[in-house]
């Protein structure tokens, strides 16, 4: 099955998802073409010349950084020119901007947040979650000769090893960019760096009220842990972004990650699932956090916190 992988880059560096997409493409047995759309695609193209890539096609555009319209038009022309059976992009913020638009416009088979790929004869089968990650599903794309899939980050290992891809260029006509990048703004550095902590005590929606956060901060200190949080607590303005674990926060890999009252949204799991030892406490036995935890307890986090408080007194 011919595959087109759309590379992603940021500030002159290929993003890790690109190499993961190349690994995912291997499930479909190729040939695999990787498209690099950039102002100066040459240097970026060198970064994706790994084992498994048959061809690297560069598309030179005026824009240094990602812009929606530029990618949409460039990828549309790539699909028109190469007719890939499957186009793979990351399930990333940038690709959310152009991939669904393109799939709708061209009437492609489409699914996002895909974490499994296989074939049944000549049929493509993708795996993704439904109902808040509580169930998985196999889906297929009857009636579509061309399919565009957005792939969940960290679902495949990055492809590696020197490859021998051929190089080519495609000149794309970009009619204009109606959403223009002006600058990047960094996240404000916080009082602590949660990415360097050996032990994170992480709390989520389960803490209920802002007033309850203090007791978990105290508990973290007693246990020798650093307090981190899941996204909802940052959205509420209870904690700064610098303490947030997950795709839109920090990716962490402490020796111990103790999650209290965190259900485990996909975006949260992506930021902590490679932690050394994960211990999760949640009242919902079906909580997705248990799928990555090494130890789990289905019980009330406040009661456990109270007992821990006594033990570390």
């Amino acid at each position: 099955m011919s595959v087109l992988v759309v590379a992603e880059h940021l500030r002159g560096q290929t993003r890790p998802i690109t190499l993961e997409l190349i690994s995912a493409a291997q499930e479909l047995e190729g040939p695999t073409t990787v498209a690099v759309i950039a102002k100066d695609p040459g240097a970026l193209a060198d970064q994706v010349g790994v084992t498994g890539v048959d061809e690297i096609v560069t598309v030179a555009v005026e824009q240094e950084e990602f812009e929606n319209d530029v990618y949409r038009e460039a990828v549309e022309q790539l699909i028109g020119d190469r007719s890939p059976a499957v186009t793979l992009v990351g399930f990333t913020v940038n690709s959310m901007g152009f991939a669904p638009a393109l799939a709708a416009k061209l009437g492609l088979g489409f699914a996002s947040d895909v974490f499994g790929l296989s074939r049944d004869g000549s049929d493509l089968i993708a795996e993704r979650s439904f109902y808040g990650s509580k169930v998985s599903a196999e889906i297929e794309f009857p009636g579509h000769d061309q399919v565009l899939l957005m792939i969940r980050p960290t679902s495949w290992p990055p492809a590696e090893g020197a490859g021998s891809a051929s190089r080519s260029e495609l000149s794309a006509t970009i009619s204009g960019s109606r959403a223009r990048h002006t600058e990047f703004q960094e996240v404000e550095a916080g009082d602590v760096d949660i990415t360097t902590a050996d032990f994170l005590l992480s709390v989520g929606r389960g803490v209920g009220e802002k007033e309850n956060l203090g007791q978990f901060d105290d508990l973290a200190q007693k246990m020798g842990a650093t307090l981190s949080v899941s996204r909802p607590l940052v959205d509420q303005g209870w904690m700064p972004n610098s303490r947030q674990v997950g795709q839109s926060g920090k990716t962490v890999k402490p020796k111990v990650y103790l999650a209290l009252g965190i259900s485990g949204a996909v975006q949260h799991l992506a930021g902590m699932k490679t932690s050394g030892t994960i211990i999760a406490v949640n009242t919902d036995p079906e909580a997705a956090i248990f799928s990555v935890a090494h130890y789990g307890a289905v019980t009330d986090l406040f009661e456990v916190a109270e007992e821990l408080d006594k033990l570390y007194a």
Partner: protein
Amino acid sequence: MKVLVCVKQVAVLGDEVEFTEDERDVDPDYLDFALNEWDTYATEEALRIIEGAGSGEVVVVSVGDEDSEDALRRCLAMGADRGIRVEAEGRLDPIQVARALAEVVRAESPDLVFAGVQSSDSVQAATGGALAGLLELPSAAVVTKIELGDGKATVHRELEGGLVDVVEVDTPALLTIQTGINEPRYATLRAIKQAEQQEIDVRSPGDLGEPAYVMRKMFVPQKGEGAEMLDGSPAVVAQRIKEIVGERLT
């Protein structure tokens, strides 16, 4: 000024699950329904823009069966002016939903179209983007700040790791709204009661096209491979946690 907000009544699966006989969906008896969390932020942002402008209208639109009017009524109770439901039964993919929405947006020609970044049940993060594609509207995804200017808006897009991409987008535009952009207001009981009486404009969909994908099989994912469950009282669980932490940190 008119802002159109696309909203969804999402399904919430409880602790237990049973599948339908064909194993292609969850038995509806096991589902609860609610307004998608992202859409409460999108509705709030629309209300603030109209309040800031001093005049205008917030129109909320949803695609689904009669039950999905609950989502629209939640938005009406927050302060949205009108609700429109596009009639649809059963499971639709995001591109089909976008096709159903596109006709309403064309008819309403709003200054801004909002959609939540994603729905909490399907997590496709695609309906808004697909709608922008069908309408050929300028768009930006995962927006955490909006400043309106003349014929354009300056928006913050939240990239992975929290890095902000500041983007200048021509308007009218479609923006997908991220949680945390504002603090959604609570509807008063009185407003909720009033919204129950409000007329919802029901429209029939046009051609929704071929589905973008078809369900083969739904199943409960294998979970907790290697996860050892700690049983016993909270005191026993806490003791075990202390032991595990002690072992792993040395």
